[in-house]
């Protein structure tokens, strides 16, 4: 598309480099930094111009592969902040300065949020218990490591195909001395009886109180529900997004770039056979017990309340 402006492609490049340079910070913080960077670099002299720059940068970031779902909402937050500060600020430079300060603060709190979540979520892990998880979430790992400081428990991690990033979680926990068992995604129901709780991260927490996360989260939640085990989510509040899907079909389509696990070593599928590998799914709020966030421990219905406060 020729309409992609220079500033927008610059924002996308900044995002990729921030992510590469500080992988611990995670994509949310990188996105906030990239948006702040685009304000710094913009030559806009009006509020409308600045909002436009942000929207373009946001659109460029969302079109990136594996970009978090919450970018559009983050962008919206920035724009709302502009219109709100516009009344208080003296002149345009003042708004710009406030906005950059706000962006930097937001990026910092995203990283600090994780230790806060770890602190409030850790007491939910039972001593001697078993925690089931999947995928790789920095929040979940931080929470489990914080809990491991004071009590003994073990973790079961599902491999989480198509990306298979459950391996990253398992490695990090094992290195810290937490007993970890790795199971295949198909074995989630098999191990469920052994677990005391299920804990997952989130790519985005939605208006409904449901979450978008790695494929397999939905089925894990359903199995947990069937076995009457609590299903918890750990997520930063910067991932809250004003989306409200009614079903899986309402999600923007997103496929993993990885080769389909089932076809490794078998060659590409012959024509009438289709290999689908969705990378994320939507878990409705009725399967989620609680969410551990930097705003506190929330019920799914409280997410929408927070979003209304944030965006109103």
């Amino acid at each position, binding site marked *: 598309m020729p309409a992609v402006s220079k500033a927008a492609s610059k924002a996308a490049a900044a995002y990729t480099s921030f992510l590469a340079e500080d992988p611990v910070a995670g994509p949310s913080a990188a996105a906030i930094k990239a948006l702040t960077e685009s304000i710094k670099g913009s030559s806009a002299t009006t509020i409308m111009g600045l909002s436009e720059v942000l929207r373009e940068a946001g659109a460029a970031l969302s079109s990136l592969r594996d970009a978090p779902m919450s970018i559009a909402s983050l962008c919206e937050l920035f724009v709302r902040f502009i219109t709100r500060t516009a009344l208080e600020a003296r002149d345009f430079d003042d708004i710009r300065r406030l906005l950059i300060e706000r962006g930097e603060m937001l990026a910092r709190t995203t990283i600090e949020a994780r230790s806060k979540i770890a602190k409030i979520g850790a007491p939910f892990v039972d001593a001697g218990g078993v925690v089931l998880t999947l995928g790789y979430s920095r929040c979940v790992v931080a929470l489990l490591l914080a809990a491991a400081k004071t009590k003994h428990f073990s973790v079961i991690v599902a491999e989480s195909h198509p990306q298979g990033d459950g391996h990253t979680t398992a490695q990090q926990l094992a290195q810290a001395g937490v007993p970890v068992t790795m199971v295949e995604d198909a074995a989630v129901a098999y191990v469920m009886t052994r677990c005391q709780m299920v804990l997952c991260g989130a790519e985005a927490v939605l*208006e*409904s*109180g449901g979450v978008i996360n790695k494929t397999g989260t939905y089925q894990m939640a359903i199995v947990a529900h069937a076995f009457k085990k609590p299903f918890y989510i750990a997520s930063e509040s910067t991932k809250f997004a*004003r989306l*409200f899907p*009614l*079903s899986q*079909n309402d999600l923007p389509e997103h496929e993993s770039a990885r080769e389909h696990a089932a076809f490794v070593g078998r060659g590409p599928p012959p024509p009438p056979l289709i290999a689908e590998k969705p990378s994320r799914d939507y878990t409705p*709020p009725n399967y989620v017990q609680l969410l551990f966030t930097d705003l506190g421990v929330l019920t799914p*219905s409280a997410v*929408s*309340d927070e979003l*209304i*406060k944030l*965006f*109103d």
Partner: protein
Amino acid sequence: MQHDDKKSVAKLQKQQVAKRTPTQKEVPLFAHLPQYEKDTGLSAAAVAKGSIHPAVLRLGLQMAEGIISGSNARVVGMLRAFQQVISDFEPPPAKVFSRELDACLKLQIQYLVDCRPQSMAMGNGIKWIKNKVTVAPPHLPDEKVKEMLVESIDQFIAEKIHIADEAIIANAMSRIAPGDVVLVYAASYVVERVLLHAYQSGVTFRILVADAGPKFEGRDLMARLLAAGLRCTYVNLHALSYTMPEVTKLLLGASSMLLNGTLVARAGTALVCMLAHSHGVPALVCCETYKFAERVLLDSICFNELGDPDELIPPPLRPATGVAGSAPATAPAPTAPPAAPAAGGGVTTASAGGGGTGSVADWRDIPRLKLLNLLYDATPMKYLTMVVTEVGVIPPTSVPAVIREASAREGV
């Protein structure tokens, strides 16, 4: 107000502008509600009293006759009438303007309530206008205050209803996907516009219009949708479970949404929602935030409205505009067409002739027969999926959050 309490009924009768005929046959469980009895002389007493504005007089009759119905239409009608009351209001000399106007409005409201019990949305509108009148700056000249009030009513109607509806339509329209089968129940103005807009935007979908007596409001809706070129299926409430498996979304209008996420809407809505819930069909409610009421209901009994019991009688058997208390002992013998009993949904007994004993048409003369025509019901929150409002799509659990934010903003 409990209408089965003698003391408060006596008090109410003193306040009433238009006296209502007391009902002869009330259903015990619903005796606490304002009882319906058809009155032809509603305006006579009010006119005699002389303090009711002609615009309000007309509106009251239109509401009583059902010419103006639908929660938005009633609120807009009421506010427009109040605009005229305010601009024509001349306070007695040496009196505080806002206090006199408040007393005048109170009388107008009483008359409207006498004509037809107010809806919760109207209650919200009344609360809002009363607040506007009391906070009107006392140092301004009367004409200025009148102008301000008239203007703020214009603004309320534009912002809270018209612009809000546009936003709701845009929000709800995007939820209709190609290939959807959308279930609607009875008739709602906003829902109808959502469907029409979605169709005009080129989405191919089908509509299932569920309907029920006594009003059969879905028939008019379906006629309008068909005229616009949409594909419709019409089904009565009793056959809904048969058609439910093909439905993908349920789209509803609302009379009101309550603090505990309960939906108050046309009687039968709760049934439709529960059926949808049991089939895993998401239920979407379109509701402007001004209809969010700060109260809680657990059932449809404590608050409801009783409609005309004669509506339950199949049309061919109905007494010709029977005035209360003078239901003819021998109803005009109808030449009962063979299809007549079917139209009544099976309430008639074997003797379809109006004069015979055991016919519903003679219910006033049959000691053990009472008719109950409830207009609304309450749907618990757990059967609803989302509420489409002008401030965005929210889960029903967030209704209190929206009310809180709105009142916080009003307070500032």
